[in-house]
Every structure is written in C-alpha cells, then in structure tokens.
C-alpha cells in the first residue's frame, strides 16, 4: 500500500460525529411512546386500588341503591350484555353482507367508491350524533320506546357497523384469489364460492373484527344518554322493550352521587368491572385470531 501522506486526515475524518441530537431524539421518542401507556397504567392502578373492598360478590349481584354499601351493578351488567347480544345479531349479518357485496360483487365504479368513502366517513361521525339519530329514528319515528333494549341496540349497532364492515372487508380481501379460482373452476356458482370458500376462510378475521367492535360498543355512553336510557334500572330486562341501563351509563350516573364513597369506591368498582369485561371480550378476539391464524 502506498498512501501515507493522507493518513493524518484519514484518522481524524472517521471520528465520532456528534450524536447528541440523535440520542436525545431517540430518548424523546421513546418517552413519547411510553407516556400514554404509563399514564394509563398509573390511572388503572389507582382505580384498581380504589375498587378494593367495593368490588365484591354483592356488588355484582345487587340492584343499585343510594347507600354505597348496598349499591350493586347487576341490572347494568345484564343490560350491557343484552344490548351487546342484540348488536351482534344486527351488525354481524349486515356488516358481513355489506363487506361481501363490496369485495365480491361490486365492480369498481363510482357507486362503489361512493359507498366506500361513505363508510369511512360514518366511522368518524361522533357517537353523540348517532345518539340523535337513534332518538329521531328509533325512539321517534319507529316508536320503540325511549331507553329500550331495542332502541339502544339499534343505535349503537349503526355506530359500529362501519367498523364491522371495514374489518370484514379486510378479512375477505385476505382470502387468496387462487382459492376463488379453484372454486369457480369446479363449476361453483358465485354464492357457492362465497359460502364454501371465501367465508370459511375469512371467518376468523371477521369474528375478530366484530368482537373488537363489540368491545367498542360496550363502552359507548353518549348514544344511550341521547335515547334517554334511564338513570337507574332495578331488575333485569324482561323484554326487548324493557328500559335498559348499561355499565358505562351506570358509572356516569354514580359519578354524580353525593357521597364520596361513590366517587372513590362504587364507581371504581364499576370501572374495574367494565374494564375486566372489556378485556375478556378483547382477549376472546385475540384468541380467535391466534387460533385460526391462517397458513398461506
């Protein structure tokens, strides 16, 4: 090798370029990533601690009561579950049907693009506006009773329908085209192909999306307020027209009670119950997703 004249400049030239900015930025970005998670964790810890002593069997099985020691969550829990079942019954077929139409039938025309854009937009309409829709449509026009199971379920179903459609579309889109080709090649009709090939393969994805959407539904409060769901319900709903309460609504109401024990006890117990149920729902979705993770 020759080149000895340049050696000095060479060594200095490879020295460390300042990384202060780089390192600082990295830490800043990491901190930003963690800040939401950490503060949520702190709040959850707080509420869990507050719920201790309040969240017990009698809380889960009693009706509400003005005395915090007797207050119970049962009608709200049952109400939420009843609403949820109804929502699932409504959104699942409608959502999957719309997704099938958009993915399997619709050609790429203006109407399709318009529907698609419209669905994306509906997913962003504030829930309180859906509440007004429910008030006008189900309580007003169809007269199915203020605050009834049906009115609540229909209202929230419309709210989560766009989410269900979008996730079902994604699931359907992930079915490889070679599978459809194989089916059509066998002389299957479009409907046979959809029923026997597309849907079975897309189903885990559709289920996951729907269950996650139900998780969102169970936390919705504003639409229920708008359709005048009652403040408090004793006893469990005995018909689709029964007035219904729901967990988030009961929590909202308890937050307005005079006694501090409600604020730092009963409400905390309600919040923990709601979050545990929500977490259970979401884990079911994740288990389904993992169990049926598709081979490609």
């Amino acid at each position, binding site marked *: 090798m020759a080149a000895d004249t340049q050696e000095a400049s060479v060594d200095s030239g490879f020295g460390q370029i300042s990384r202060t900015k780089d390192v600082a930025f990295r830490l800043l970005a990491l901190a930003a990533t963690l800040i939401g998670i950490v503060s949520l964790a702190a709040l959850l810890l707080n509420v869990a601690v507050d719920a201790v002593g309040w969240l017990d069997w009698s809380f889960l099985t009693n009706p509400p009561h003005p005395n915090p020691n007797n207050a119970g969550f049962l009608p709200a829990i049952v109400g939420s579950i009843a609403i949820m079942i109804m929502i699932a019954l409504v959104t699942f077929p409608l959502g999957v049907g719309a997704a099938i139409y958009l993915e399997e039938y619709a050609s790429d025309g203006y109407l399709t693009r318009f529907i698609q854009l419209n669905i994306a937009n509906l997913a962003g309409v504030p829930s309180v506006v859906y509440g007004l829709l429910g008030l006008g449509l189900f309580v007003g026009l169809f007269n199915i009773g203020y605050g009834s199971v049906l009115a609540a379920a229909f209202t929230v179903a419309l709210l989560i329908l766009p989410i269900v459609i979008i996730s079902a579309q994604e699931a359907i889109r992930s079915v490889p085209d070679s599978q459809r080709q*194989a089916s*059509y090649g*066998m*002389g*299957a009709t479009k409907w046979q192909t959809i029923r026997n*090939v597309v849907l079975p393969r897309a189903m885990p994805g559709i289920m996951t999306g729907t269950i996650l959407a139900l998780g969102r539904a169970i936390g919705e409060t504003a639409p229920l307020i708008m359709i005048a769901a009652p403040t408090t319900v004793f006893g469990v709903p005995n018909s689709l027209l029964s007035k219904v309460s729901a967990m988030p609504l009961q929590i909202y109401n308890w937050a307005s009670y005079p006694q501090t024990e409600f604020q730092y006890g009963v409400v905390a117990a309600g919040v923990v119950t709601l979050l545990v149920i929500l977490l259970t729902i979401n884990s079911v979705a994740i288990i389904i997703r993992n169990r049926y993770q598709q081979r490609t």
Partner: protein
Amino acid sequence: MTNKQMTSSETEQTDDQQPNPTPGTDSLADRGTDIGVETSSRDDPATVTDRTIIESRDLDVYYGDDQALNGISMEIPEQQVTALIGPSGCGKSTFLRSINRMNDLIDIARVDGELFFREKNVYDDDVDPVALRRRIGMVFQSPNPFPKSIYDNVAYGLRVQGQDDNLDEKVHTALERAALLDEVEDQLDSSGLDLSGGQQQRLCIARAIAPDPEVILMDEPASALDPVATSKIEDLIEDLAEEYTVIIVTHNMQQAARISDKTAVFLTGGNLVEFDDTTKIFENPESDRVEDYITGKFG
C-alpha cells in the same frame, strides 16, 4: 462443442428481447434430436381419436384496450394431450381461460369470436358458464387446495355440483386416478395443506377429475414443483389422457415434447403461429420463428 457457446452479441440481444432470427444451416430433423426431444409414445394411432372436442374460430380476447389474443383458430382433439407453449405474456393462459370462460371473472376482459365445445358455442347467450365449467376441470399453476380436509377437497366439486350420492366411492376413485390414494388413504381427514407440494398438486387434479369432467385444463401445473414431483405429474397426465382431453400450458419445452400429442405455439402479440403434432413441431416446424423459439433463441 463450439455451438454451446453463447456469444456476447447474442447475450445482448437476449437482454433486449429483440429476436433476430438467423436461419440455421443444420437440418431441422437433426436438431430435433439435438434438443433431446423424446417424442411421446402416445401418437400411436390406436389410442388416439380424431374427434374435435373444442374448436376456436377467430377468437380475440382483449383486456381493456390491450389485445391479448389475436384471431386464434384451432381444433383440439378429444382424448389427447394438447400443449400450449410460447414466451411469457403471449396469451397461453388467456386462451386456456377462455375455454371455460374463467375470463368472465376478470372485469376488463372481453371476448370476440367463437369457441365451440362439442359444437356448441360457449359464448352463446344461453350458455351458463357455471354449467360449462362443470364439464371442464381446471388445475392451476401452483397447487391451491382449500384449507379443508383432503376428503372435503376432493368432494368439493361433487357437492357443489349436487353429485353427492356415493360420495365416498367417488372421492376414492378420484384420488386413485390422481395416483394419490396410496399416499393419503389413512389421513383423509387431515388438512390438504399438510401435504407436500407435489401431493397438493395431485390433490388438485383429483379434485378436478372427481366430478368427471370431459376436459381438463392445466395452466403450468408443474411450474411450482420440484423435478421429482414434476415427473409424477407428467406420468399422471399421460394416464389421464386415456379418459380425458387434457389441454396444458407449459413453459418447459421438454415437458411439452414429452407429454403432448399436439402442440400449439403462441408468440408475442397473442398470435397462434403453429399448431400441429408435437413431433412435427419439435422436429420440423414450418415457421422460422417457431424454430427460433424452440431452439432457445428468444423467449
């Protein structure tokens, strides 16, 4: 041995994909042997019928504004193996798909001209493509079994077509004909996806023949397989031709030469340049361009 060397100027031509055919001086017959064609033993006249099962007349196919097939006319004989060969993009798959109207599934595809299946134009208004496809089986480039059990894969077509009497028997027969039964007999309930690539492709063939179609279309059925699996599929195809009409697209000229009775050579632009007995095509093609293609000058 000198003719094994590729000159640099030829390399350049190949890069640019601009064929510049140079008439060879060797006898074409000699070259036939030279390229190692083992011509099929199936052209023994006793096993071959001469009836035409599929005939296309002046068939054009367009994708949007692009023409993919240009006035294709050919008569495909019954119970023989017809190979479609040609460079990439020349329209082989398009032709295959226009036989069982799978092109209907492509929004922008449009077909002009006529295609007869046993003297019925399949593009007539009264033809239901679903009914058509029930008489024409199809096997694809890469194996695409459904994520169902082996049994259900084979039974699929039978069920779809409402032929669900004697299901067990039919499934077994199909697997047997596809030379797969011995390997999977004990695991009919396990998923079709758990098989090897070659087995999967034979499963797809079993699935295609189970409803007892008259024609089997195969679009490069072995291109995703290793040589061992490929040779099994090739054997199978020869067997199938005893009962079915097989039309196969392949990139592999040796394969076409080995297994087919008739060969159609498509060239770029969607033209059918030559269609004849396989022996003739590989040993003594009419067209210089076919000769160039077969001898590997381009494509």
